[in-house]
């Protein structure tokens, strides 16, 4: 995302959320606008364009929640499907609440004005102040700054990024983690971990101001963060029963419903146009809308590059193309282009995505070697390719420095990984995070929820 925004927060602070102020407000404005009340003032047009753009790209990113749900429901075994659905619906819902209650405020304390951070930071550049999100009054406020977008649209859009981060974690830890400890972690992730580190870049914090870190739509700020949290969880949680034999033999546990997984991939691909496109943050000029167009085209070609790379790699390496790897490959391409979907040419974007696809094909078995059990391949896709994509920014964007990117990746990674690790350890000690062996063998659906995902289909 290009620049963090003072104004929304200003707005937040300025305006109490006066619910019933509606009509007055409307009237006021109407009056103001007078006769031609249905023709926007010239100054409003850019504001309408950008706000509407956020709403549309925002609902596309929302749709990604369904994508993760289908992808994961398709890649887990039948007996754990209901639980995976439950986790995904619940995590999105909690993310929505927490980002409203804590996240949005923490994430956008505002950029420093000539070097000086506003008081909205508790620790300037590192930790924002606590405040609940609230929107402009109904009818909009006369003193709204028209150069950006409505707070509501910005909040809506940003909320979806927070939820995406949470979605990444559920896939890795599937088939063995208990529902509630998982949700407690999600609450902490979406209410604190994500927004705090995001403020360092997009909130105008240290990484942005001092390290000149560039991460357009969040290869690091969103995807690798989800990946780090998932990795920490996987280490504490341990692999699924019978997944790794003593002799280093890996027992595949094939996904139960590949059409569902493929649908999930397509949903994510679609949602990503909003994810990257909306991160342009402005659609108020020909230049901005042309940039958003570049981003759409680059995002698409990077996904294609990733899919084809994985297709060819698995054909060559295993003699048979692996659909699940091709799905991961497309997502890898998308994650890889996310840090910089604007500046690359179509050719460069395709290559950046293709490298992501290759990374995944090697990373998946590599994690198995390390006995790190990542059910859906979220760590290779979101963490490994998130890092790759963030470094790849330097290839096409002259403003990025390799060290600036690398250090930022390290700072974010260290923070998220360590904090997550601590939380997982505490959760394990306090409430236990893993289901009993018997329950795991029976499957979480029957054991934990008493509800099968496909009760009438006999298991082959």
């Amino acid at each position, binding site marked *: 995302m290009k620049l963090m925004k003072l104004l929304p927060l200003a707005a937040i602070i300025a305006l109490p959320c006066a619910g019933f102020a509606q009509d007055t407000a409307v009237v006021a404005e109407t009056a103001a606008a007078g006769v031609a009340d249905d023709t926007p003032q010239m100054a409003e047009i850019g504001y309408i364009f950008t706000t509407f753009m956020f709403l549309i790209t925002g609902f596309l990113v929302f749709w990604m929640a369904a994508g993760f749900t289908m992808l994961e429901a398709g890649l887990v075994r039948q007996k754990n499907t209901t639980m995976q659905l439950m986790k995904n619906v619940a995590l999105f819902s909690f993310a929505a609440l927490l980002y409203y209650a804590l996240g949005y405020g923490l994430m956008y304390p505002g950029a420093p004005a000539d070097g000086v951070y506003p008081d909205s930071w508790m620790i300037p550049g590192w930790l924002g102040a606590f405040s609940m999100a609230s929107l402009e009054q109904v009818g909009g406020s006369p003193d709204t700054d028209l150069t950006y977008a409505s707070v509501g649209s910005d909040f809506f859009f940003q909320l979806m990024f927070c939820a995406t981060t949470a979605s990444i974690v559920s896939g890795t830890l599937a088939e063995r983690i208990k529902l509630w400890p998982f949700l407690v972690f999600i609450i902490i992730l979406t209410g604190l971990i994500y927004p705090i580190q995001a403020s360092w870049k997009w909130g105008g914090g240290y990484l942005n101001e001092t390290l000149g870190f560039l991460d357009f739509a969040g290869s690091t700020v969103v995807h690798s963060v989800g990946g780090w949290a998932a990795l920490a969880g996987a280490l504490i949680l341990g692999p699924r029963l019978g997944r790794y034999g003593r002799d280093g033999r890996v027992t595949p546990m094939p996904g139960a419903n590949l059409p569902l997984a493929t649908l999930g991939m397509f949903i994510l691909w679609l949602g990503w146009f909003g994810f990257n496109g909306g991160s342009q943050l402005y659609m108020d000029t020909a230049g901005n809308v042309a940039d958003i167009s570049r981003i759409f085209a680059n995002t698409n070609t990077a996904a294609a590059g990733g899919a084809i790379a994985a297709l060819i790699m698995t054909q060559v390496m295993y003699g048979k193309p*692996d659909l699940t790897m091709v799905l991961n490959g497309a997502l890898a391409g998308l994650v890889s282009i996310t840090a910089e979907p604007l500046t690359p040419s179509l050719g460069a974007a395709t290559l950046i995505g293709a490298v992501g696809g290759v990374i995944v094909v090697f990373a998946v078995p590599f994690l*198995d070697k390390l006995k790190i059990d990542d059910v859906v391949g979220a760590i290779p896709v979101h963490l490994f390719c998130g890092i790759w994509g963030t470094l790849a920014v330097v290839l096409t964007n002259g403003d990025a420095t390799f060290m600036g990117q690398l250090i930022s990746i390290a700072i974010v990674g260290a923070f998220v990984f360590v904090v997550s690790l601590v939380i997982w350890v505490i959760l394990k000690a306090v409430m236990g995070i893993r289901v009993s062996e018997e329950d795991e063998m029976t499957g979480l659906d029957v054991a934990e929820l008493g509800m099968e995902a496909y009760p009438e289909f006999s298991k082959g």
Partner: protein
Amino acid sequence: MKLIIAAIKPFKLEEVREALTAIGVRGMMVTEIKGFGSQSGHTEIYRGAEYAVNFVPKVKLEIVVATSMAEQVVETIAATAKTDKIGDGKIFVLDVQSAVRVRTGEINDDAI
């Protein structure tokens, strides 16, 4: 009466059914099973991990016929299910002590 249990390759089911009908078999029970046998054991790769496929899909037929007919039924199945490739299947014959047709209450040979 005899119970004839046969495990055959799924795609042979229709052919076998037709052949049996032709020789006068009026009923059977068909079940999808996972077969383990000499055909089993080739390896596949899933997400980079190699594993052995121990079970191959088969179809199990269970047919109760009059003792007099048993041999012919076995021969018919054997002839029709044959592809000369490994995994063609097996046929087993067991004794059946009695049979009842629920609808009519007819018993034994009249029931089948």
